[in-house]
């Protein structure tokens, strides 16, 4: 039978507020266990939550970025369950009245088409702490530093039809929240996590099949792999005439398989009710407009501009707009050299290769955008040829220079990379080369006219070997002229 895959994602993004959603404790990652948990985060008797307005501003910003309805009256609810890293015995979240309603994002498919994925809602909630199972013998340790970190949970419609689409959606959300500056997007620290709802149905059937939920997947690659393996598992069961059980599963990246969580780990009746300690959050159009005014240019708009205004290909524009920092780097280079295509080639070529080779992010690259812009300027005015430019770039990447733009020009000098374009000088070298290689010249002259273009190659190599930094175009012109004079 032919099956259709149905996927919906719930993405948790930690908001980049300084303090927690309901307390003044710091949200910084990596502190010693329980040093960033105050009485409120510990859920001590008598404490009360106070809502952090910065979390509200960020959630509204997100809502506006995905063109969503903004909840002018949002309400916090208590979601009740017992777990040691949930100090109050309930999570404060938003059930019926989320801050962000229906919105959408567009993802790009492999065939170059765009697909719209609708977002059902996004709501604010508090993160739980962490249970630590190693180093405590038969006991478990609890670290409540993360407890109360603000999260926005983004719920998609079940509109993705492949693991690739799901990964593209996750990437796009990552791109949006980092562009907005509302999430640091650090997947390795759990700043963004994803629950994947997966089901299969016979192609053409309207009703959804029974779904499973893969919890807490935390990388783009694992989203794709986890869903792929779950699709395969479900398909095997269905093909054998079996039934899918609705359950929560975990993805084991080492074994590349999902496994069902023990039923004990799954609570089923959360007994939601409005949190009586928090008032409904009321906002008006003025508030929303003020937040709207702070929205940066988002990846889709940037991509469109790269294509329409600066003539980049759709693929290049997509790559260069996906990451906020890379895009900013690229634009600075492009503006400095005033050539978007040249900048695009370099950023996607040497810059990306260097980042991969050194395993660093664009922020850690030793070559600043202004410096690369200057290097490209020197290509454009024929001071550097492409090879020389690469040498300067690599030298900078390895830590040479003082970080300034001015140091580029002195590096070019000291490395002897300045290109020779003086025709007289080149003619003299060419004359020497031709005189020293009489046999080659004979061979060339014996070559039929239509094959001479290829036969000129070895001479170019010899000239460039004899004199570093000669302008290859000038060399070509002189060679052709001299050889033609000979025969």
């Amino acid at each position, binding site marked *: 039978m032919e099956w259709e895959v149905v996927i919906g994602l719930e993405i948790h993004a930690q908001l980049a507020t300084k303090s927690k959603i309901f307390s003044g404790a710091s949200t910084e990652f990596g502190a010693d266990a329980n040093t960033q948990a105050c*009485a409120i985060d*510990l*859920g*001590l*008797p*008598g*404490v*009360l*939550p*106070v*809502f952090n307005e910065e979390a509200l501003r960020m959630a509204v910003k997100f809502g506006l970025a995905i063109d969503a309805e903004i909840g002018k009256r949002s309400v916090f609810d*208590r979601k*009740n369950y*017992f777990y*040691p890293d949930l*100090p*109050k*015995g*309930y999570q404060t979240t938003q059930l019926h009245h989320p801050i962000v309603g229906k919105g959408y994002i567009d993802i790009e498919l492999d065939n170059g088409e765009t697909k719209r994925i609708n977002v059902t809602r996004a709501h604010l909630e508090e993160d739980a702490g962490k249970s630590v199972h190693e180093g405590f013998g038969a006991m*478990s340790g*609890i670290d409540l530093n993360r407890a109360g970190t603000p999260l926005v949970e983004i719920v998609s419609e079940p509109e993705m039809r492949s693991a690739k689409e799901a990964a593209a959606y996750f990437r796009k959300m990552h791109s949006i929240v980092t562009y907005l500056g509302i999430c640091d997007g650090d997947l390795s620290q759990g700043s963004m996590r994803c629950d994947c709802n997966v089901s299969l149905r016979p192609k053409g059937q309207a009703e959804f099949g029974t779904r499973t939920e893969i919890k807490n997947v935390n990388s783009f690659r694992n989203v794709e792999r986890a869903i792929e393996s779950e699709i395969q598992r479900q398909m095997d069961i269905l093909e054998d005439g079996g039934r899918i059980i609705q359950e929560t599963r975990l993805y084991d990246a080492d074994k590349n398989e999902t496994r069902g969580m023990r039923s*004990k780990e799954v609570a089923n*009746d959360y*007994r*939601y*009710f409005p949190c*009586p*300690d*928090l*008032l409904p959050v009321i906002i008006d159009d003025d508030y929303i407009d003020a937040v709207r005014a702070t929205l940066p240019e988002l990846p889709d708009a940037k991509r469109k501009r790269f294509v329409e205004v600066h003539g980049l290909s759709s693929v290049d524009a997509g790559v260069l707009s996906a990451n906020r920092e890379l895009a900013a780097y690229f634009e600075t280079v492009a503006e400095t050299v005033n050539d978007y295509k040249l900048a695009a080639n370099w950023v996607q070529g040497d810059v990306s290769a260097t980042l991969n080779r050194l395993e660093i992010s664009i922020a850690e690259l030793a070559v600043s955008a202004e410096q690369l812009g200057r290097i490209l300027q020197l290509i454009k005015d024929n001071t550097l040829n492409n090879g020389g430019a690469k040498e300067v770039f690599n030298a900078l990447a390895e830590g040479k220079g003082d970080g300034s733009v001015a140091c580029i020009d002195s590096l070019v000098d000291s490395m002897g990379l300045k290109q020779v374009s003086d025709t007289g000088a080149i003619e003299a070298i060419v004359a020497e080369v031709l005189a020293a290689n009489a046999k080659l010249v004979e061979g060339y002259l014996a070559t039929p006219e239509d094959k001479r273009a290829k036969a000129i190659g070895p001479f170019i190599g010899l000239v460039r070997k004899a004199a570093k930094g000669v302008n290859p175009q000038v060399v070509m012109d002189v060679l052709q002229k001299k050889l033609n004079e000979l025969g």
Partner: protein
Amino acid sequence: MHNKTIAQIARELAAGEYSSVEITQALLSRIEQLDPVYNSFITVTPEQALAQAKAADELRAAGQAGIWTGVPMAHKDIFCTNGVLTTCGSRMLGNFVAPYDATVVSNFNAAGAVCLGKTNLDEFAMGSSNESSFYGAVKNPWDLERVPGGSSGGSAAAVAARLVPGATATDTGGSIRQPAALCGITGIKPTYGRVSRWGMIAYASSLDQGGVMTRTSEDAAMMLNVMAGFDPKDSTCVDRAVPDYTATLNDSIEGLTIGLPKEYFSADLDPAMAQQVRAAVAEFEKMGAKVKEISLPNTHLAIPVYYVIAPSECSANLSRMDGVRFGHRVADPKDINDLYKRSRSEGFGAEVKRRIMVGTYALSAGFYDAYYLKAQQVRRLIKNDFVEAFKEVDVIMGPVTPTPAFRAGEKTSDPVSMYLEDIFTIALNLAGLPGMSIPCGTVNNLPVGLQLIGNYFEEGRLLNLGHKFQQATDWHQQAPAGLV
């Protein structure tokens, strides 16, 4: 030394008639001597109290004393006190030394008051007789066979027995007004949001409100002056200026309209009580007030609504008492579920468990709409009754309880009859209105309370009425035999 009001002590300290250390010492001795009988304190803090008193005397010597400097009082053991055991009447918190002060506690500390200790209460403020405290029942000083009311029975008994001139308390369904009535003292529950709930251990968050228990309306005004006010740490606290409640105590009540809800004078009310309440209302008529019969048609729904909403909220509020981070933890738990189950089974008493279970049920999938949601809708109807009534009258009066103090053990096996004890008080909490109880007579030598209900933030009016009544009568000066 012991039969003094707060106002009197403040005046006499200022006049140098005695020191704060002296009166503190006197009251501590009295507590030590008499409280084994009443059991009104869970924790007495003589060292801290004497240190505060000494500091207060020094402040006075330095000419920096305020009205409250050196005046003794006590806190209900539901308010967190930094470094002092805070049990909430439960075994669950039998080892909980709060690491911070409730805002109410900070306010009294800042005013220079001397805290003698922490008063007894029904476990987690759930009860109307103070029999559910893990630390033993409190006795009514008027009759040791009878209950002092609850949940603030410790504060009420301590004030009635003249162990302390005033104490903080909380009221979720009548927990200030009912024990005040049963112990013959004055108690006021302010408007919801008037007093910060920060550090006040939550029973039912949308109903809980801190207030005071004293022997006079004037003292209650003095205490409320310290307690009331906006607190950025409590989102439900209202940012609104606090008037000086003592400034309006003597205002004329000429022309004021008093509403008497016919539902409050129903068959549930002991006729002898009704007579006392009507006599008290007549006292106000003598002072120029007018009386009008009104109707609060949804009164009969208040108890069922309360017993859905309060247990629902408490079922979540008490989830943090899980034995993981603080409080009672069972010995040798097999695993985390065993730790939860046995710690909570051992830590909570029967009434608390009953309410957690009722609330858990009411919030469960499939029942939420029929119980919690419906209760919230009816709650609005109850509130609207009052909103309508206050279009016609300035203040509402009626009884606090259907009967005087009942015998200990009389209602413990019948929870519903215990719940009906709050039939006249509970609606105010649902509406968020301020209410006050003042002594207005006795039946069979047991005190009877008059309930005064004000519009939102009209605490000043209630205290004014209470004060005028206490100027004209002496019910508030009557004391249990042998205690004055």
